[in-house]
């Protein structure tokens, strides 16, 4: 993206709440959360070649931890947020240690199983999670005394967090560590032979990905002020994975585009079209047929071809 295009994009994002109605501002906030969440999964799927079907675990864990600390211990947001992040990251460390014993389909299944265990726990351990009733009565934080209850305030908050998070993750990808990670995806034997600890590279990525997933989880629970076991479900994990792949795994822009498409179809188009599930499926099929690597790489390839001719 050229510098000019970047400036225009930033201006549009900053000005949007001034022109959009409440509904569209809130829709944009949800897109930011989904985009951050998808970007965190992309570290594993796109750059590490590790397809996880359990990423919803991090949204759910962070959201439940933060909600529980607030409701049961009455802690303030500036304490609950770091505790939720630490707790989620620690569990990501443990899960990564178990899951990375496998690769390929085995990795997909073990991440699915681990997240399903959390999902079951959220349903069954009602003393902590309030089971199927979910945890309600939550609030949004007020950083520096600024209330986030209004749509525009929350919009700027989630936009800022998402930009910082994506920038941090992009930095990792473009660092020597990122090169090692891509190497572990493409040439894991050679990387080992060259003296890299492939397992450690993958594990650190898993943990880092879990951490940013947890950040998305905090935004999620702040936005909804409610958390229910469905946030941990297989459907949630599948949805974010599909967004990453549809947009283009292994690119920075891809997961953002993909997550936005899924969210817009689910929350916006469904108001006009009863058969939005079918449309969602059809969109995925069409993407695969015309852009097998996802939208962003597909468009890049097309525009490169156009330039040549």
């Amino acid at each position, binding site marked *: 993206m050229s510098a000019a295009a970047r400036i225009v994009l930033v201006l549009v994002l900053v000005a949007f709440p001034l022109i959009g109605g409440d509904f569209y501002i809130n829709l944009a906030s949800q897109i930011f959360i989904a985009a951050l969440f998808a970007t965190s999964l992309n570290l594993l799927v796109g750059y590490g070649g590790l397809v996880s079907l359990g990423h919803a675990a991090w949204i759910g864990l962070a959201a439940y931890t933060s909600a529980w600390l607030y409701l049961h211990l009455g802690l303030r947001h500036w304490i609950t947020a770091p505790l939720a992040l630490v707790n989620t990251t620690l569990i990501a460390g443990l899960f990564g240690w178990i899951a990375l014993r496998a690769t390929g389909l085995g990795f997909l299944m073990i991440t699915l199983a681990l997240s399903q265990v959390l999902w079951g726990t959220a349903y069954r351990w009602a003393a902590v999670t309030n089971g199927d009733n979910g945890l309600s009565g939550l609030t949004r934080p007020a950083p520096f005394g600024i209330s986030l209850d209004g749509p525009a305030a929350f919009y700027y908050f989630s936009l800022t967090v998402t930009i910082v998070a994506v920038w941090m993750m992009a930095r990792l990808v473009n660092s020597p560590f990122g090169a090692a990670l891509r190497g572990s995806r493409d040439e894991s034997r050679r990387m080992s032979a060259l003296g890299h600890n492939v397992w450690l590279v993958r594990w650190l990525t898993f943990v880092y990905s879990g951490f940013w997933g947890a950040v998305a989880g905090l935004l999620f629970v702040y936005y909804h002020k409610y958390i229910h076991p469905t946030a941990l479900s297989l*459907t949630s994990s599948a949805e974010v994975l599909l967004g990453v792949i549809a947009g283009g795994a292994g690119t920075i822009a891809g997961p953002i585009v993909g997550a936005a498409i899924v969210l817009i179809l689910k929350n916006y188009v469904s108001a006009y079209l009863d058969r939005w599930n079918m449309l969602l499926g059809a969109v995925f099929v069409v993407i695969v047929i015309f852009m097998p690597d996802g939208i962003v790489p597909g468009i890049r390839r097309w525009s490169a071809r156009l330039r040549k001719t």
Partner: protein
Amino acid sequence: MQFWIVQSLNSLALGGLLFLLATGFSLIFGLMRIANLTHGALFMLGAYVGVTTLKFVPNLWLAALIAGLLVALFGGLLERSILRRLAGNALGQVLVTLGVSFIVADFCLIVWGGDPIPIAAPTSLQRPIVVGNIAFPAYRLVVLGIAIITAIALHLLMERTRLGAMIRAGVDDMQMARAVGVPVSRLFTTVFCLGAALAGAGGVIAGPIMSAYPGLDADMLPLALIVVILGGVGSLLGAFVGSFVIAIIYTFGSALLPDLAYVILFLPMIVVIAFRPRGLFGRRST
């Protein structure tokens, strides 16, 4: 005592059902390395097609055959038109197979509505078999029998036929199979159709137990994956043993450890993958 006998029978019957569900998935993955995530949707589609077929042909086995053929046709089209362009593109396969699942699920909701629809067992099998003070549904025993027959038939297919020899060659070494003249393209379509047919027919045969209802696809897909991962992908024996292991764990686990009902199927899988990533009978890493 009665509890143990009935639950053991339950485990066997459920194991049979799981085998019918999972073996097609295993077959496709073993040869083509495609994680066919439409498998749950094909199973459900089979059940619903069975519902409609039974209105015209009042015979469950015939309905299962017809549903199997129709679902195989659908699977073949899917393989020919889309999946074969995606060889080696695992992410694209995930996207397209789940996308097709969404379409199939929504299609079923439009055509058959949102209410559960029963599928009747053959009249002669509707009454339970009673021995002493133990009653057990006759149909479930038949399902177990069908699963065993299917397993034997697939085993013979693999070991005794030309098609089986080609499949085995492909599973072991695709390059080599191609080099010695195995028509890989046709073989892939055949195997994909066979896997889809097993799912579709399985949906009908499971019908008198499960019924056809929206959400059947999402309930079944994880089960198929668990069985296959536990047993080892691409291994017929693995799918067979995996089915019964899972059924036993589920049946007794839910009864004896009700607090673990939600995780009872996933905990053993975590342990198996963590210590034996290839599954119990897997020949090579997934």
